[in-house]
């Protein structure tokens, strides 16, 4: 496929890896923020191919994984309301909340449907005018403009039974929160490619400036990631951390202005609850008052029981990059993709699922 196959050239990749080995003179610790990058790195075995001076940690960039139990509980409570249809991206279905999952709630006869797009949800709303149709709006800046667009479309078309439980989260603020925690001592960050298609590379500029940490925005194919690692190592070796883009075919410094405008029209910045990190101010999006009638939080009254976290699960530590799935006592024993205990084993982009699927490539 165009724009994919040419960035998977094995011979070229070997040469770039050799070059990284030659320019890397001291140990560096890099975090690939995005779950999509984690999967690509695991699938291609890059962790073991990179020189031993380059350590790669997985970050919290999987929206399913960072969704807090409290928010999953609320989604389930909404689904249990009468005359309601809840729609969700597929990965969310099996994530265990405190007492149940969306999948279990569906088995218990709640009307919960997997959708590929907010467009699908709008269609369901049109076809079921007597029911309230609530989209579980998880995702980062990549997905937020599509949710904004759906709310504007619902308003324009007079669709009155469409609602969003807005759980959108923002990447730069959580990077700041991780850096402020100071648990990791990072030298560089592989910044998320498709988030940056929307927000551009400028929002990361505080990271080299205030924390001295190198940043490169990366695409998702193995050669994209290797180029990013080469650029990060070069920055670190020369002592000049800055923000660079290795994914110029899709990312610009200023991002997608139309998408940013739509987001700003519909959302305002608010706090968000991150699994493993907690409530972080100004790290999420809320629906503005002007669009309150589409806001499931405003429109419905629900009660949930106290939040319970699964015993022994270290998804929180894994999401902060402090531990790896191999440090978890439940990994591949009590917790498998068939019977997941924590979200990092459910989502296809979760670290635990990636280690489970491609773990044989990761033995150094």
């Amino acid at each position, binding site marked *: 496929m165009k724009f994919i196959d040419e960035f998977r050239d094995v011979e070229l990749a070997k040469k770039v890896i050799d070059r990284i080995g030659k320019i890397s003179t001291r140990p560096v610790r890099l975090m690939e923020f995005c779950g*999509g990058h984690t999967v690509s790195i695991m699938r291609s075995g890059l962790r073991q191919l990179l020189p031993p001076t380059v350590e790669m940690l997985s970050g919290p960039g999987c929206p399913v994984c960072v969704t807090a139990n409290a928010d999953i509980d609320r989604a389930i409570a909404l689904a249990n309301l009468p005359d309601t249809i809840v729609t969700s991206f597929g990965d969310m279905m099996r994530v265990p909340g405190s007492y149940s999952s969306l999948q279990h709630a569906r088995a218990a006869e709640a009307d919960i449907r997997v959708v590929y797009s907010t*467009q699908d949800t709008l269609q369901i709303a049109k076809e079921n005018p007597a029911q309230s149709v609530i989209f579980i709006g998880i995702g980062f800046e990549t997905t937020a403009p599509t949710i904004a667009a759906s709310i504007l479309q619902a308003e324009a078309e007079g669709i009155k039974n469409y609602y969003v439980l807005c759980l959108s989260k923002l990447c730069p603020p959580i990077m700041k929160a991780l850096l402020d925690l100071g648990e990791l001592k990072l030298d560089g960050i592989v910044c998320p490619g498709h988030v940056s298609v929307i927000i551009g590379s400028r929002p990361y500029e505080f990271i080299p400036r205030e924390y001295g940490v190198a940043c490169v925005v990366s695409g998702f194919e193995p050669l994209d990631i290797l180029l990013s690692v080469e650029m990060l190592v070069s920055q670190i070796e020369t002592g000049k951390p800055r923000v660079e883009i290795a994914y110029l075919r899709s990312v610009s410094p200023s991002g997608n202005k139309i*998408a940013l405008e*739509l987001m700003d029209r519909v959302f305002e910045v608010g706090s968000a609850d991150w699994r493993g990190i907690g409530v972080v101010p100004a790290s999420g999006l809320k629906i503005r008052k002007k669009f309150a009638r589409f806001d499931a939080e405003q429109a419905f009254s629900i009660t949930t029981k106290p939040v319970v976290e699964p015993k022994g699960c270290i998804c929180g530590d894994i999401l902060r990059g402090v531990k790896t799935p191999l440090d978890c006592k439940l990994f591949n024993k009590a917790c498998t993709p068939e019977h997941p205990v924590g979200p990092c084993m459910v989502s296809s982009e979760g670290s635990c699922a990636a280690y489970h699927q491609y773990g044989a490539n990761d033995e150094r």
Partner: protein
Amino acid sequence: MCLAVPVKVVSIEGNEAEVEISGVKRRVSIVLTPEARVGDYVLLHTGYAINVINEAEAQETLNILEQMADLDEVH
């Protein structure tokens, strides 16, 4: 979750485009990329084109990688 795939724009009608990937066709929204034209490749995320892929920049990135590999062979 932030997965987006390159797809080719086959036709455009208002805010929607028909796109093709590996012979599969689908209607998607181009409300976020009104600059998209027939023949362009766009990144498709959850039913929306989120940007038009810049072919010249893609080639430039490959050139940089080739140069990097050549540099390595000289040393």
